């Protein structure tokens, strides 16, 4: 275990990783974290087009049929995080914190709020006034969702996390929500901010370290 003045958190910027590989890595890290073999981790990455379904999600929320998804080159994954259906794809900054919450407040509500706070602070750096909507977990800009959150917790170790739309092609979200009914989505690009995933990730990692009171170690 590395030596840190406060708690350690390993930052791993992984670039583009397919969903299944990232899930496997998370499972491995979470298992090791539970046994205290590794410190906390923050994985930052990007997925190819994929639609994922939370444990309590409903398939009927996937609007397009399998054939349409296949034609559009979108993979599909049922997974064990909280939340319903979501879309990940190029231009979206995905963050998977693997944290032992016993070392940090032991409070899932506080955890989710802190993840939101990290994203809000990052967006503030880019001049975007983002905020929360009570009872609707995630980060919002003027009634549009810019970041989604879905977490899995086992023995207080977190996995899964958040997805921030940096320059995501938002039309892909239409495959999963009947648009006349759902809250609309947005991205930093749609709000006029041009930034690369690496750059946004770097800023986010700084806020993450501050808010979760840990020392960020680059791998």
């Amino acid at each position, binding site marked *: 275990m590395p030596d840190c003045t406060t708690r350690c958190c390993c930052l791993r910027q992984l670039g583009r990783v397919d969903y299944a590989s990232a899930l496997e890595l998370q499972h491995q890290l979470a298992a090791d974290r539970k046994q205290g073999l590794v410190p906390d981790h923050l994985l930052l990455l990007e997925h190819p087009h994929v639609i994922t379904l*939370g*444990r*309590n*999600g*409903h398939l*009927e*929320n996937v*609007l*397009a*049929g399998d054939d*349409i998804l296949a034609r559009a080159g979108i993979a599909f994954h049922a997974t*064990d*995080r*909280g*939340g*319903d*259906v979501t879309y990940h794809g190029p231009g979206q900054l995905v963050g998977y914190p693997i944290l032992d919450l016993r070392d940090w*407040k*032991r*409070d*899932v*509500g*506080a*955890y*989710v709020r802190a993840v939101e706070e990290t994203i809000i602070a990052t967006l503030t750096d880019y001049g975007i006034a983002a905020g929360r909507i009570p009872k*609707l*977990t*995630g980060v919002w800009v*003027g*009634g549009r969702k810019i970041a989604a*959150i*879905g*977490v*899995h*917790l*086992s*023995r207080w170790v977190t996995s899964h996390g958040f997805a921030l739309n940096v320059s995501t092609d938002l*039309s*892909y*979200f*239409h*495959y999963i*929500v*009947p*648009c*006349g*009914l*759902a*809250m*609309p989505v947005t991205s930093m690009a749609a709000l006029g901010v041009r930034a690369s995933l690496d750059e946004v990730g770097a800023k986010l990692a700084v806020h993450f370290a501050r808010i979760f009171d840990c020392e960020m170690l680059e791998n």
Partner: protein
Amino acid sequence: MTDVVMPQMGESIVEGTLTKWLKKPGERIERDEPLFEISTDKVDTEIPSPAAGTLAEILVEEGKTVGINTVVARIDEAGGAAVAAQPAAAAAPAEPPPAPAAAATPAPAAAPPTEPVAVPVVGQAVPPAATAVPAVPPEPADKEPAGPLSPLVRKMARELNLDLTQVKGTGAGGRITKQDVEAYAGAQSQSAAPPSPPAAAPLPPAGQARTRIEPMSAMRIKIAEHMVMSQRTSAHVTTIHRVDMTKVARLRERHKAQFQTAYGFNLTYLPFITRAAVAGLRQYPLLNASLDGQNIVYHNEIHIGIAVALENGLIVPVIRGADEKNVLGLQRSIVDLAARARSRQLKPEEVAGGTFSITNFGSFGSLTGTPVINQPQVAIMGVGTVDKTPVVIDDAIAIRSICHLSLSFDHRLIDGALADQFMTKVKQVLESWSEEVV
């Protein structure tokens, strides 16, 4: 027994939804082995068992949301052999109950046999001999006559609070029939003028739930959120105009058969109304706008959302460039979008970007209604049923095809005068229809 409770997952968390049981009653579980999963605020959590033993009973079903510290299950640490899955109420009569229960007084005669679990409290102080005297067979058995009983007769007896042993059976083999019960009940109510047992509202049949709980589908939840969000966002006002559709009705009659043969679909009123709405939107573009904070966003294109009822919800596919389509084109789009909405084959861009919506509740027989605005739009038109109605024209009574069109508009942006000017335009287009249909 160890109680398993809904854990507190954080200071602000007051309840959790039990999403999945990972063990079944009767199954062996180790301490710290995952027992169930809960969901709170987009976080799914596996909860480990607080003790080793056998899962004796589950008290909270999957899908239910309960407060923290609610007991959700019990674990028998003895790992008991016979604990199995037996529900608490199904006490086995074969084994004589142990001492304290034997001292119990039998349930009073009136009590229905719902709780075979004896009430041990009363008798305990008294010497067992005093109370445990009679070899009286348990009360419930006493109330049942020898022959077989039909479920209907049992139910009637329960509801009328009758003792079936007193009823004389006239059916095959002395079986008690429905008529026997009715006759007996009739005689009873006459003889026993002061109804001794309160003949008030019959108790619900024991063991049968009065409600059924089912989680909402994800689509239902989305609809619910969207509707409430819209009501919270817009200052909804609805205005209703009566429109004489006689001219359109005649046109429709004339072209109906031709449509069916030439294009393979029916000609309805909806494309005419959509076409008229387009004319209104062109003249009053504020109705085709949306609000973005303090800004008014005028949309130069007219994309009309048409609400389509699904089996358990609704969806609003959009006719793009509705102003570029005639009645035939609009009808074709409506038929196509509705069919694909129902078979879930809409492409994402087909449910996005509407600038105005129309909902046709008239097809379900509604005269008129007050639809909820489809955000971020600022108005939605509701179409009532078209009925032949007597109306006064030039002081004479005539039979006309009348339709009520309602418009719900966002009073933040649109004033009543403008809304009515728009509706007057729509009405005028429909009443003096001059366009070719194809």
